[in-house]
């Protein structure tokens, strides 16, 4: 049994502690906004916040996330500036990688409300997008940044 706090809700899940968090979030709790892409931490599709930091939920065991605050895309407020900016810039194409991109960007702006171009690239480079929305992601981050960062 693993005890998790996700988006402010407590969950007891009957799963071995070494099962990757992504499978618990997605397949046990059906919070499907978090995506599976590679399973090796190389694409960022499964990015969630753990105690406010962007983490790959495929590289985090469920057990190791116990006692920590987990936030998924479903837990990011609807009026979050990053979500607003993503819509304003019409970022997604297929949309599959975007929850991970959004969670990664939200963590960046929480830490640095006005990141430089290099900081954006450094922070976002682990998130792949096969549709090629990188430029729009960058514009959306700049827009969210100018509209007041994370708050």
């Amino acid at each position: 049994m693993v005890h998790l706090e996700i988006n402010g809700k407590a969950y007891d899940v009957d799963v071995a502690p070494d099962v990757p968090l992504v499978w618990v979030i997605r397949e046990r709790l059906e919070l499907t906004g978090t995506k599976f892409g590679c399973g090796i931490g190389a694409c960022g599709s499964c990015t969630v916040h753990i105690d406010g930091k962007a983490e790959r939920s495929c590289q985090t065991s469920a057990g190791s996330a116990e006692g920590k605050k987990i936030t998924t895309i479903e837990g990011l407020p609807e009026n979050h500036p990053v979500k607003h900016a993503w819509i304003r810039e019409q970022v997604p194409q297929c949309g599959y990688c975007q929850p991970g991109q959004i969670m990664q960007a939200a963590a960046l702006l929480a830490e640095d409300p006005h990141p430089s171009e290099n900081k954006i690239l450094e922070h976002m480079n682990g998130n792949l997008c096969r549709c090629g929305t990188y430029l729009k992601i960058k514009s959306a981050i700049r827009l969210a940044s100018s509209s007041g960062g994370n708050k």
Partner: protein
Amino acid sequence: MKSDLSRRQFLKMTGTGLAIAAATTSTGFRLLSAAELAKEGQSFHPSVWLEVRPNNSIIVTVNKSEMGQGVYTSLPMIVADELDADWKNVRMEVAPADDAYKDPVWGMQSTGGSSSIRHMYEPLRKAGAAAREMLMLAAARKWTVPLKECAVDKGRVRHIASNRMLTYGKLAADAASLEIPQNPVLKKESQFRYIGKNIPRLDMHDKVNGTALFGIDSFVPGMLYAAIARPPSYEADLLSYDRDAAQAVPGVQAIVPIHSGMAVCADSLDAAWQGRDALKPRWENGRYPNLSNESLEKDFTAYLDVKGLMARNDGDAGRALDSAANKIDAVYQLPYLSHATMEPMNCTISVRPDSCDIWAPTQNQTGVRNLAVKLTGLKPDQIHVHTTFLGGGFGRRFETDYVEEALILSMSMGKPVKLLWKREEDMQHDLYRPMNLSKIQGAVDEQGRATAWSHKIVCPSIFARVFPSMLKNGIDTAAVEGLENMEYEIPNIAVEYVRIDTPVPVGFWRSVGSSHNAFTVESFIDELAHAAAKDPLEFRLGLLKNHPQAKRVLETAAEKAGWGKPLAKGEARGIAYHLSFGSYVAEVAEVSVDRGSGAIKVHKVTCAVDCGSVVNPAIVSAQIMGGLTMGLSAALKEKIEIANGGIKSQNFGDYELLRMNEAPDVDVHIVKSSDKLGGIGEPGVPPIAPAVANAVFQATGARLRQLPMKPDTVLAAMKQG
């Protein structure tokens, strides 16, 4: 035959308002009301729906798959415009797999070939316009005024003189009883309300808040998870495996042999995957133990000397080359590529004795349904295909291999099954963009004019497997696209196709043959320009005197990019254009090359696209931007590694995709030469690889004839150059 399912759905829907179906007939496209449909019996195939509900909602049913290209927005825009609907009342619904929704041109329900707008534009406009005319007539009758005194205005009919108004919802029931005009008057371009505008995408909110449902997000009560252990090499038999160990994993329900390997079905995904690990399968070496990149390169190279089939023969290229003083030749090589959609292959299926539900991220609803009919023995109207969002398609999801596996497993278990491939399975069991080699010879005369072009391509055939009937006298038209229709006005052109069959399966990869042939054509035309000592742009324009659309995109991209103007030190420009799927795209790349490491940096790409009439310019720009980014990823980084009879590339660690820090700035300019519609999902891909290679030549003098242009390849070419 129209199925009972669609009839039921159609009639059910008509009870609530006005519904219009469009049907393909042997003489073209016509519109049917529900009453007519019942009268017409089984001989019509409605393929497009719109519904006006009493509450003013407009529901447009979309028969194309949304994989990022924007059809869930652009297709409803077309209907809404002709209907003169209020966009805020427009919703879309995904069509089930049904004959009613077959593409009117293809006769199958599928998405590909950058054709969704091209094939659906006219039928959707007609459906919208017919509904508009009926709503107007219903209002005129209600008010007992002449029809010509009425006008439509964003979801309402207005009597101009009295300024009375009725919403479409209020008129729906009356309009439903009217005869449907077969030739409704379409709007003039100047009357368009939505077409041509940057309407925000209807799928945007769901894709930003995480509620958009992809195939992987499907759940069915009581479903099992399936995982398949697959052989590491082609046609390898299973020697041994530990059934007991897998069975001992808590939650594992069954070990099921399947054509593609050994499947484990379990109560949870983690149990299925642990069970698969516990199988510890041992495989024999497979039928082709010596298959490798090296062996393939040797085979393809040997095939360059095989006599092929002539796909094009203008003038006498052989003689022109023999007598030419200034001639060059080159061999180009491109690797097998994976689609690498971000969402791995997956499918969720529930097969029951009397019906079958399939949740699939598919580009090929007809293929999925036919397969289910074949395997289950059920009737077509017992098969319900639920098309989810696709986490990337790029041609991979035209295939039905993953659906077949899930069908077999659900039937075998007598339960719903969710099959999810690991990234490694997705990478190693793809149907790849074909490897190919081209040997090109060309000549220029004393005036610097190109006089001959002889092009032999050695390439596996996609159509031989997918659509054998599309082979033209043995020639795979996909393999020679962009060659047989190359527009350069050269008096002597020969295009020869040599088909090579290898154990590596091949499939459609975004922009298909154009994705590789644009590289060879547009690189070699640059080589000819150099041989003629001419500017690459001027040289091209000189060979396109009778091709105004090609000239225009080249000139536009060049002008916007500042062609000929100075750049920062170490930077250089390259240009390329390509016609594919009815659209012209020219791209100018600005690059620099690190002379120490050989790494290419692409700073900026300026594009000009001519796709005729544009439904949504923002989506067009996004597709060009996305297409060239995917094309650049392939050009700089991607190559499937093959060894010991199978695919060795596994994941994004060893099959790297372009990342944000490598993505250039992109500037897209839309030009329009005619109303003729061109596709937009794919044409952004082809020109980028040659534009970059041509820029590298300008920067370094090194001619890159192999993809990907990895740093070591560039260094080697620089040493040679």
